[in-house]
C-alpha cells in the first residue's frame, strides 16, 4: 500500500495561524461577542462616570486609563476561561484536536490569542482615556495631565495579560465552565479574606494574593523591586501552576 510521503504532505498550520483562529473563535460566537462588548462598555462607562463625578484636577489621562482597566481586569479572565472550557462544554474539542492533534499547540494558540485580546483592551483603554480627557476638557470637567507614564502603561499591560492568562489556566485546569468561573472569582477572594484575618498568613498573602500583589502595578508611581517580586510570585501560583497541571491533564485526557 502507498504510504503517505510526509515530506510532500501539506505543512502543519503555523502557530500564528492557529492563534488567529483561536482569536476568531473568541469573537465569532454570540456569547463571545456580547462578553467583549460588555467589557468595552464597562471600560467606557467607568471613564464617563469618573469624568462626571470627580473634581476636574483629578482627571488626568493616566487616571482615566487606570479606571478603564478595572472592568477589563474583572471580565477578561472569563473570556480566557470560556476559550478553553467552551471546547469541552460545546464538545468542539472533538474537532479541534482531530484537526490539530498536538494539543499543546492548541493551548499555546489560546494563550497567544488571550495576550492579543488583553493588549487590545489596553489599547482601547488608552484611546478611551485620551478621548475622555479631550471630551472632559471641552466640557470643562477635566483639567488633569495629558501624559500617561510609559511604566504605567507597561505594568498595566502586564497585569491585564497575566489576568487573562489566569483565566486560560483555570479553564485548562478545570475544563468545566461553571466550576472554573466560580473558583476563579471565589478562590482569590477567599484567600484575601483569610489572609487579612489570620495573622501569620498576612505576610504571605501580600506575595500570593493577586488582588494585593497586582495592586502596586496599577498606580501611577513605578512599582518597587519587592512589589514586582510579589506580583511574580502570585503569577507563579495562580497562572503557572494551574497552567502546567492543566497542560498535563489536557495531554493525557481522552477527548470525547
Amino acid at each position: 500500500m502507498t504510504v503517505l510521503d510526509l515530506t510532500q504532505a501539506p505543512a502543519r498550520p503555523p502557530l500564528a495561524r492557529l492563534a488567529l483562529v483561536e482569536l476568531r473563535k473568541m469573537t465569532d460566537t454570540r456569547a463571545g461577542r456580547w462578553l467583549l462588548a460588555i467589557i468595552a462598555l464597562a471600560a467606557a462607562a467607568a471613564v464617563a462616570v469618573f469624568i462626571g463625578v470627580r473634581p476636574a484636577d483629578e482627571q488626568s489621562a493616566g487616571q482615566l486609563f487606570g479606571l478603564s482597566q478595572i472592568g477589563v481586569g474583572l471580565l477578561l479572565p472569563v473570556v480566557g476561561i470560556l476559550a478553553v472550557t467552551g471546547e469541552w462544554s460545546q464538545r468542539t474539542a472533538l474537532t479541534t484536536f482531530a484537526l490539530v492533534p498536538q494539543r499543546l499547540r492548541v493551548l499555546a494558540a489560546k494563550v497567544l490569542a488571550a495576550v492579543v485580546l488583553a493588549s487590545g483592551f489596553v489599547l482601547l483603554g488608552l484611546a478611551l482615556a485620551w478621548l475622555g480627557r479631550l471630551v472632559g476638557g471641552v466640557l470643562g470637567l477635566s483639567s488633569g495631565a495629558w501624559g500617561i507614564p510609559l511604566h504605567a502603561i507597561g505594568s498595566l499591560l502586564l497585569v491585564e495579560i497575566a489576568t487573562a492568562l489566569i483565566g486560560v489556566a483555570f479553564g485548562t485546569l478545570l475544563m468545566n465552565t461553571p466550576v472554573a468561573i466560580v473558583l476563579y472569582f471565589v478562590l482569590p477572594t477567599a484567600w484575601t479574606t483569610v489572609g487579612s484575618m489570620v495573622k501569620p498568613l498576612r505576610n504571605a498573602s501580600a506575595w500570593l494574593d493577586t488582588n494585593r500583589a497586582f495592586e502596586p502595578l496599577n498606580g501611577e508611581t513605578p512599582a518597587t523591586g519587592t512589589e514586582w517580586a510579589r506580583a511574580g510570585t502570585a503569577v507563579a501560583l495562580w497562572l503557572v501552576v494551574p497552567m502546567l497541571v492543566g497542560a498535563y491533564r489536557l495531554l493525557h485526557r481522552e477527548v470525547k
Partner: protein
Amino acid sequence: MIEVERLTKRYGPAVAVGDVSFACRPGTVTGFLGPNGAGKSTTMRMICGLTPASSGTATVLGVPFRSLPNPGRHVGVLLDASAQHAGRTGRETLALTARLLGVPSSRADELLETVGLAGKPAGRRVGDYSLGMRQRLGIAQALVGDPSVLILDEPANGLDPEGIYWMRTLLRGFADRGGTVLLSSHLLHEVEAVADTLVVIAGGRVVASGTKSELLAPTGRTLVRALDPAALYTALVSAGLTVIRREPPTSDGTGEGFVVEAPAEAVGRAAAASGAVLVELRQASGGGLEELFLTLTGRQAAGAVPSVPSSAPQEVLR
C-alpha cells in the same frame, strides 16, 4: 487507507474494545456495524488519536493519525454532529476550519452548496439547526480539506430518507473517485446499500468481517409460504426436501412459512405436485449476517426463533 491492528482499550478491568483489527482500502466504503455501546465510537476515536489506545496500533495512509502534519487535509472526521458550538453560524464553522487548514475560504460556500445548507441556513446559528442539518454541516466540515479518507460516526443519524439517499450518493461518489470511507452505524440496512466491506463489532470485539457479497451472499435456500402451511410441509417432506427452519406467520394473515434447503424451482415443483397454493416463493434473505446482527442488537422479536440452526451465527464468524 486505514489499518487497525489489534486495537484495544481498557477502562480499568473493563474492556471497551478488544483486539480489533481491520483494514479499509481506497475506493471502498467500509461499514462499521454494531449495536450501541459495542465500541464503534471508541475505536474511531482511537484511530483519530483522541482516545489513547491501551494497546495495538492504527494508521491512516500508512502513518499514525497524530503524525499527519495537517490531518484535515488528508482525513475528514465527523465523530459527533452535535459537537459544534451552538453560538456559531454554519458558514462561520466551515470558514474557521478552512482558515485552520489553509484552504481558500471560498471552500466554505462551495461545501454549503454541496450539502444543501447554502442560503439562509448558512447564516443561522448551529444551535438552531436540526440534527439532520448538523449532520450535513459535519459532513461539509469533514470535506473542507479535500481529504482522501473519511471517518464518519453514525452520519445517517437524524437524516430523513432523502438525506440518507443523498449521503449514500455522496459517499459512493467519494469512494468511486478513489477515496477511503469508514462509516459506522447501528443499523444494518443503513449501510448495506452503500458499503462494500462490513466489519461487525459487538462487546468490543469483531464478530464478523468481510466483503458485503461474502457476508450477505445468497444461501441457496428458499422461503416458501402457502395458503395451507400443513399441506405444504407434508408436500416438501414427501418430495425429500429439507426444511431447515420455520418462519412465523406474517402480520397480514399469511400462515407459517418454511425455509427450505433447495432452489426455488424444486420447491415450486414439490408444491405444484401436491396442489398446494403458494402465496410466496423467494430466495431466503442473505446469510447469517442479518440474523447475527438482529441477535446482537436484540431486535429479534421474542418467539420468532422457532428453530434457528445453532450453526447459523457461527457461519460468519471468522
